[in-house]
Each structure stands twice: as C-alpha cells, then as structure tokens.
C-alpha cells in the first residue's frame, strides 16, 4: 500500500506543484481556491493509490480469469460470444460513453443518443471478440491495425467533417479507467493459457488498442448513415454544446464561481464534497456491470476458492472508493484550476509560454493516468523486467508532451486537427512494419490508456480556457485534444521498440 501511495504521489504531485507554482506567480487563483486545490490533490493521490490497489486485487484477476477460463473451454463460439457480451456490457455502462453520446446528439439533433450508445458498445464488443479471435488464430496484430485504421480514415474522409475530431475523442473517452484494466487483463488471460504459439509475449497486448477502434468506427458510421448531409448547422449551434467529454466539467464553472465569491476559506472544500452523491452514482454505474459479470462468471465459469472471491470483492471495493476520491479530487480541484490557468494565460497572450507549459504538462500528466500505471506494470512483468516501467513512462511522457505542444499551437492558430492526426497515424502505421510486434501492441494499447480521466478533464479544461480567452471556437478547438493525446504513444512507444530491437541486435540478436 505504501508503494502504491508513493507511486501515486509521484504521479499527481508534479502537476499539483506546477498548478500551485503558477497560482503563486502568473495566475493567482486566490487563497480559497488554493486551499481547495491542495485538499483535492490529496484526495486525488489517495484515490489513485486505492484504485491501483483495487485494480491489482480485484479488476485484473477477474479479467484474467475470464480470459483464461473462456479459452480453456475450447469452444470458439462461446469465446467469441462471451467476449462480445463482456465488451458490450462494460462499455454500455461507462458514464463517459453516455455523456459522449448525448454530446454528439446535442451537436446534431438527428443523432439518436441511445442508438449511438448501442453502436459504440457493439463496436467495442465486436473488436474485443475480434481481438481474441486474432490471438486464437495467430493473425498478425499489425495487419489488423493497418487494415482497420485505413478503413477508419477512408470513412473519416466520407463522413461529415465535424465528426472527425469527435470520433477520435470517442475512442479515448470510452476506454475509461475501469474498462481498460479489464480488457487488458482479458487479453492476458487468453494469452496465458496458450502454449506453443509463435509470438506468445506479444499476444498479451494489443486488445485494448483494437477495442478502441470500435468507438471511432461507430461514431463515423453513425455520422455517415444516420445524419442528413445538411449538417453544416453543427458549428453554429455551439451554445448548447458542452464540448467536453467528461460531464462533470459541466459543474466546474459553477463550482469555481461559487468559490470565488465566498468568504469562508473552507467553503470550496464543502462544494467539492457536495459532488459526492453524484460521483458515487457515476462510479457505481461503471462498477455494477463488472460485479454482475463477476457473479455470472462465478456461477458458470470460475472454479475458485472462497478466499479468492472475498479478496476480489475487497479489491473491487478499493477500486470503487479509490475512483470516487479520484474523481472528486479531479473535478473539484484540477478542472477549475485548469480552466483558471488556461483563461488567465490565454488572456495574457503569452503564446510561447503557453506552448512551453503545454509541453511540460504533457510530460507529467500521462503519469497521473490510472490505467497507465496498470499497463506499464503488466508490461514489466510479462517482459520479465526487460522493458522497464520507467523507460515506458519516459517514452509516454515524451510523446504526450510533444503532442500537447502541437495541440496548443493548434489552439492558438486554429487549424483542423486532421492536419495533425493524419500524419501521426500515417507515421504510426508506417512504423508498425519495422517495430517488434510486442511494442506495436503495447503502443496501440497505450493509446487508449494515455487518454484517461486526467487528460479528458484537466488538460481539456486548460485548452478550453485558453481557447475561450483567445476568442477561438471552443467547440472545434476542444474536440480533438483527447484524440491527439491518444495518438502520441503510437509513435513514441514504437520508436522505443525500434531502439530496443537495435540494441538487442547489437548484443547478438537475443
């Protein structure tokens, strides 16, 4: 537990420090906000630590066991249908997906949010079972990525322009902190029981990467088939659009305004605590299907001892409490701080400073993502320690910081996100031909992992703040940031893979 607290302190600490540093220099937030922020940062740190513990003890064992026992049944239809249902159920309950569906609907009223929600869930379910099918038949994961991303870009070309950024954000948003570790573990469970395969270690990864294509395709298909071509009305309709993936951001403006006006220093904290029931329900919503699945597995699939069952439930409880604290901290502290800093700096118009700050934030924000810690730990364990966690984290930091720098340039000069995303994906897909398979799989997994709650809240509200203050169009500017962050690891981790393979070749091709 102390280890986990340490990890989480070193991942959240730096961001908190930068925020406070800025608050005491260029962008004063006021004493009330500062106190609230420190309080929230502590919440976030404890929450992240608890969540990581819960993921270790609760979520990952369920996923692994599900994968392993579904495969051990040696029944292909069962494996495919089972994994489809798993993917579908855990997605449909994810609160972020529901919010996203509603947002897209508010952009264009001809979209039926319920239909979109089901499409996204089907998308993820389909790709999860396709990913397992791939492992069983030992098809190349690289081929799958290339084929499906080419399909994605062809569709993106046909689809209404405004949906391009939304579609890519969708993939980042839907793979939330609950689903990612679970899908990750599912793939590992399947790979764990399969012997004499060609590329056993790399089979452990790649499933999350494939799954995150699902939502992109779902949104694009939706926009092509269910929307009138007269969708140019979209942009003018910005008022009722909350251009943010996380719905809690809705409340951010309210809560930060309240804190500005109040006299009592601790009133900010009170406001944060007021969010508790709402957060509680949101987190419960994403956890309940997981518990339901676990119970079904217990009845039909798992043969485990009582103590293991109890331990998993305790783990799920940790994850539950951890996520509540984490979201309370983020929504109450990091989102308002991001907005205030973004708006103040945007108004000051220090373009260069903004870009540099984005680069710095990018380097540290990725370490604050819960799922990143889960993934890097699994990579280290499966590679037997040859791929060190720190090296992976460094590569992710580099990638995300570079991309966030570019994202800020885009916000300042306001060009389409496609000009960034298309080249990034072209390079990323090109790299797959040279990179060791395992690294390609890890890279695409990291995509969904890097764009977690910290990015879709703090970074997004920061960019939004800048965009608003600079008189840009928050709708077009804001959508796309998450997609960009998710694309960064594709290049960064694959380059890391190239470096690794060069080095091991020198040692004599181990």
């Amino acid at each position: 537990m102390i280890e986990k607290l340490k990890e989480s302190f070193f991942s959240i600490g730096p961001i908190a420090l930068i925020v406070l540093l800025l608050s005491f220099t260029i962008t004063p937030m006021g004493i009330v906000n500062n106190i609230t922020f420190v309080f929230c940062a502590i919440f976030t740190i404890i929450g992240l630590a608890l969540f990581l513990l819960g993921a270790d003890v609760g979520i990952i064992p369920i996923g692994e066991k599900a994968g392993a026992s579904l495969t051990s049944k040696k029944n292909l239809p069962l494996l495919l249908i089972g994994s489809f249902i798993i993917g579908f159920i855990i997605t449909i309950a994810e609160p972020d997906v529901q919010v996203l569906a509603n947002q897209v609907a508010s952009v264009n009223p001809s979209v039926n949010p319920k239909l979109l929600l089901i499409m996204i869930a089907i998308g993820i379910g389909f790709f999860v079972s396709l990913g397992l099918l791939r492992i069983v038949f030992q098809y190349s994961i690289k081929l799958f990525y290339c084929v499906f991303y080419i399909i994605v870009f062809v569709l993106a070309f046909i689809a209404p322009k405004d949906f391009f950024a939304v579609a890519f954000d969708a993939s980042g948003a839907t793979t939330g902190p609950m689903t990612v570790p679970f899908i990750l573990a599912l793939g590992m469970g399947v790979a764990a029981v399969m012997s004499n395969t060609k590329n056993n270690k790399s089979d452990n990864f790649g499933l999350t990467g494939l799954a995150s294509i699902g939502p992109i395709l779902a949104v694009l298909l939706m926009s092509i088939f269910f929307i009138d071509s007269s969708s140019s009305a979209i942009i003018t309709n910005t008022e009722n659009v909350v251009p943010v993936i996380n719905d809690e951001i809705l409340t951010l403006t309210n809560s930060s305004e309240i804190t500005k006006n109040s006299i009592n220093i601790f009133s900010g904290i009170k406001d944060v605590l007021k969010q508790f029931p709402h957060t509680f329900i949101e987190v419960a919503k994403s956890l309940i299907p997981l518990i339901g699945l676990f119970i079904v597995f217990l009845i039909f699939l798992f043969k485990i001892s009582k103590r293991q069952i109890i331990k998993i439930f305790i783990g799920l409880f940790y994850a539950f409490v951890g996520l509540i604290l984490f979201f309370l901290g983020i929504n109450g502290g990091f989102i308002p701080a991001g907005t205030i800093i973004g708006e103040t700096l945007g108004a000051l118009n220090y373009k260069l400073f903004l870009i540099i700050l984005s680069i710095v934030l990018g380097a540290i924000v990725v370490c604050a993502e819960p799922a990143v810690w889960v993934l890097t730990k699994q990579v280290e364990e499966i590679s037997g320690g040859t791929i060190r966690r720190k090296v992976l984290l460094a590569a992710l930091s580099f990638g995300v910081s570079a991309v966030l720098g570019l994202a800020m340039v885009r916000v300042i000069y306001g060009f389409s996100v496609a000009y960034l995303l298309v080249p990034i994906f072209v390079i990323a897909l090109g790299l797959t031909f040279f990179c060791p398979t395992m690294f390609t799989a890890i890279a695409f997994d990291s995509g969904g992992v890097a764009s977690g709650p910290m990015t879709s809240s703090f970074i997004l509200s920061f960019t939004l703040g800048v965009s608003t203050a600079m008189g840009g169009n928050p709708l077009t500017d804001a959508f796309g940031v998450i997609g960009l962050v998710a694309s960064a690891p594709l290049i960064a981790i694959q380059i890391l893979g190239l470096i690794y393979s060069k080095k091991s070749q020198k040692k004599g091709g181990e």
Partner: protein
Amino acid sequence: MKLIISIVPRHKGVIITEAAKAVGCKGATIVMGKGTAKNQVLEFLGLGTSDKDIVYMLEKNSDYNKLVDAIIDFTKSEKKGFGILFNIECNKLLKNGIFEIEEGELTMATHTLITVILNAGYAEDAMAQARKAGATGGTIINARGTGKEEDAKFFGITIVPEKEMLIILADKEKQENILQAIKELPCLQEVGSGITFCSDVNNFFMLGSQK
C-alpha cells in the same frame, strides 16, 4: 557448487548483481515475484503484498564466501529486513558448452525451501495454510504448465494450465508441520492440480542493515 538465491524488493535485484559483479561472479538471473503479506488479516485486505525480485546465481564453493560478504556489504545501506539470501548445493553446471563439476559441501541444513506448484489463484490459499503451521512468509511466482501430449488442442494451439509457484523458506524443524498443513489443501487433491517438494538450504542470511 552452490546455487545462491536472494529475494529482495522489486528493482533492487540490481544491487545483488552489482555486488556479484564486483567480486567477479559473471551472471545472474532475475525472476519477478510477489511477496506475501506478513499476516492473515493484511493478506485478506489485499494490503501488505509487495513485488519482489528473485536473483539466482551460481558460484564455486571457493568463491562463495567472498560473494556473500560482498552482497551483505552492498546491501548494508538498505533498511533492516531488506531481503534474504540462502543457497542450495548443486553439482554440475553446463556453461558455454562445457560441464563444470564440483560436488556440493556436506553441511547440516538449518533451513528448508518448500516449493509448491499449483493452479493459478491458489498460492495464497496454500500460504494461509502454511502460515498456520508456522511459516512466516513466502514468495509467489507466476508460471504456466508445459502441457502434456494428451492435452486437447484448440485450433492447433495447446491449452496449458496457468500455474503459480509458491516458495517458502522455513526452519528445518517446521518443515513437517508445514508440509502436513499444505497436504490438507482441497485444491491439491485432484490429479494434476499441483505438487510440493522440499530442498535443504544452507547459510541463511538476512540482508539489509545489520543493526
């Protein structure tokens, strides 16, 4: 010839290998494991488990003391109870295509290394049993069975059982009690569900600050 095994916190295995290098021991293999919790309650709550590195090294009898001294020296700056070190006698080593032969030394073993290999998920059940019989701690390593000829194939791929390997270091006199306790485990009753064996261990050391 001795197989020297050291169990230390995750990422600290490097300290052991550095120490070994300093006295000329050529190679070491690091395996990743998970240390079990100190007691039942902590284990149940999922607290107190910690990631470990398990370091395996082979050394001639003559150089053994030098190596152990170096390791103890290198780890002095770490906190008390940092890790453990013990050895198992070996007699034949194939290295660079040549057999090196050296008989193990006959000593009175003070400790025993109990290894339990069982289906994944049950290692902690086994540890709970062992703890009741006086074991203090164990280390779990994820593993997988090799699969037998008769194992059913699934589209050409052999499905093998997931396994866990639990290693417990205990006083020699506790060995029988612990083995009996593990024998009681329901999860070890079926055919192919797991095995347990003991090996004599010499010269057990605690690493870390010696105060």
